[in-house]
């Protein structure tokens, strides 16, 4: 059975964009075609996956796969799929493309993630975002994502002594990284004082502890390892993938909000499949929707012992020169978080990093990269990539 590889990637800048939903996904898809220098044309793509969460609300459009394919000149003969799994959608799209390629059902799959979250009436934005939570029992109370992650932060701080300064250092690091990312929403950096003195969102989070509301899109092409060599000298191989989901409702899933067992499980699946250890990962794009999320994620991914995520960021182990560079792209905090686009943009970053094409963001000598999305503390997907030839 053939192995699976990424052969091209393109990103449409994240942020408050003067562009429509279809403008954004077209921009990313076109950039992805352009990046491989004409080696792959729309006609060469037989499978298509669009990862997107709420175009029904923000663009009043469903039937997204066909619309996106038409925008990009793609007429799929093997797979046409819209994939929605809230914030996991992007990396789940990569996982799904992997499976279709491995099964022999598709030859070349374009995965596009796209979202248009900025709308003409700002009051709608948080109502729209609340559609991703349990409407009947939690979202109806005004609960949005910050509430859930803030409670996890409170528990982690109480149990392990994690501090607001340690949370803030995640934001400072990731904003420093996004300075070097032309596709990022924020490119000017923030200081520790700015983060700590920012207006409160929900205790213990200030503004910079939270990823912003963003538009954006990203695209990659996944194909068989054999075909990959026809398109590029430097394919990036998908060597591991795992997912674990323990439900939607926040209330009843854990005894301890500071532990995220499904992430541990998804990571274990991916590591075992890739036959690597956490210490083998050189560069990781993880889901820092909130500062606490990066801290808990570095623990559950096994980059540091449980409870030591605060010390891990504080000691610089997740920055350049440390054990593993976490979020060189700038993370969701620095790049913005256009839901379905995020995981695909993370994958694009790992593609560039493992090819040595990440410019000022380059992690020297990176061989193994990891991407991670959550759709809330109870649901996670992890993918692992390698530049080493796998046939």
């Amino acid at each position: 059975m053939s192995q699976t590889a990424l052969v091209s990637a393109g990103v449409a800048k994240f942020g408050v964009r003067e562009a429509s939903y279809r403008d954004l996904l077209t921009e990313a898809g076109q950039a992805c075609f352009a990046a491989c220098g004409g080696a792959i044309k729309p006609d060469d793509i037989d499978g298509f996956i669009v990862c997107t969460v709420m175009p029904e609300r923000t663009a009043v459009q469903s039937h997204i796969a066909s619309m996106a394919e038409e925008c990009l000149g793609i007429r799929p003969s093997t797979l046409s799929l819209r994939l929605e799994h809230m914030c996991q959608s992007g990396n789940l799209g990569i996982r799904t493309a992997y499976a279709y390629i491995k099964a022999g059902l598709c030859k070349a799959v374009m995965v596009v993630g796209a979202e248009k979250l900025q709308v003409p009436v700002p009051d709608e934005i948080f109502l729209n975002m609340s559609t991703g939570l349990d409407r009947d029992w939690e979202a109806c109370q005004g609960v949005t994502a910050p509430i859930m992650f803030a409670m996890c932060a409170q528990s982690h701080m109480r149990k392990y002594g994690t501090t607001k300064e340690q949370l803030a250092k995640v934001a400072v690091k990731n904003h420093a990284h996004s300075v070097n990312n032309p596709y990022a929403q924020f490119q000017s950096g923030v200081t520790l004082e700015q983060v700590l003195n920012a207006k409160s969102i929900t205790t213990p989070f200030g503004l910079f502890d939270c990823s912003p509301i963003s538009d954006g899109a990203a695209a990659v092409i996944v194909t068989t390892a054999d075909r990959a060599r026809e398109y590029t000298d430097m394919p990036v191989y998908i060597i591991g993938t795992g997912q674990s989901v323990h439900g939607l409702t926040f209330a009843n899933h854990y005894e301890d909000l500071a532990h995220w067992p499904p992430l541990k499980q998804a990571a274990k699946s991916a590591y075992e499949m890739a036959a690597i250890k956490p210490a083998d990962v050189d560069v990781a794009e993880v889901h820092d929707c909130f500062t606490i999320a990066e801290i808990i994620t570095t623990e559950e991914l096994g980059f540091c012992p449980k409870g030591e995520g605060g010390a891990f960021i504080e000691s610089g182990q997740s920055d350049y020169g440390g054990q593993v560079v976490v979020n060189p792209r700038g993370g969701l905090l620095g790049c913005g978080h256009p839901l379905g686009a995020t995981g695909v943009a993370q994958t694009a970053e790992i593609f560039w990093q493992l090819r040595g094409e990440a410019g000022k963001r380059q992690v020297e000598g990176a061989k193994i990269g990891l991407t991670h999305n959550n759709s809330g503390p109870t649901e996670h997907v992890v993918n692992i990539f390698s530049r080493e030839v796998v046939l």
Partner: protein
Amino acid sequence: MTAKYIATIDPFPQQHKKYTKMYPFYDHLRQGRLVSTQCEECKHITWPPKTMCPQCASAQIDWVELPKEGRVVEFTVAERGIPVGFDIPTIFVLVQVGPVRILSRLINADPSKVEIGLAVEPDLVKVPGTPLDEERVLPVFKIKE
């Protein structure tokens, strides 16, 4: 088309018998009882209420009243980032009520008085209705007197 630009959303659940099998929950709540569902076969109690038992897959479920007192397990005080129409600040609480945990709001409370282990009791708030329901209700908590 003369309608003005509007793209609103109804943030509250349908509660009328015509639209949900959960209508008894709201009927009980209106009468001051916080209930959930219990499996008649394996006795498992869930939150939120469900039309099948997630433990044994039985469809034989019944309504059961939850205890009148719960304890705050976790909380956060929100000042921004919540949908339009909700109070600022809002105190969100994760409450252990007997065998289940419920994520809801603590109403009529001073945020500085909230702490882990605080005793709370169920209450309800009224929210706008629909063409079928004159008003709807949601379960919340207040500090136990």
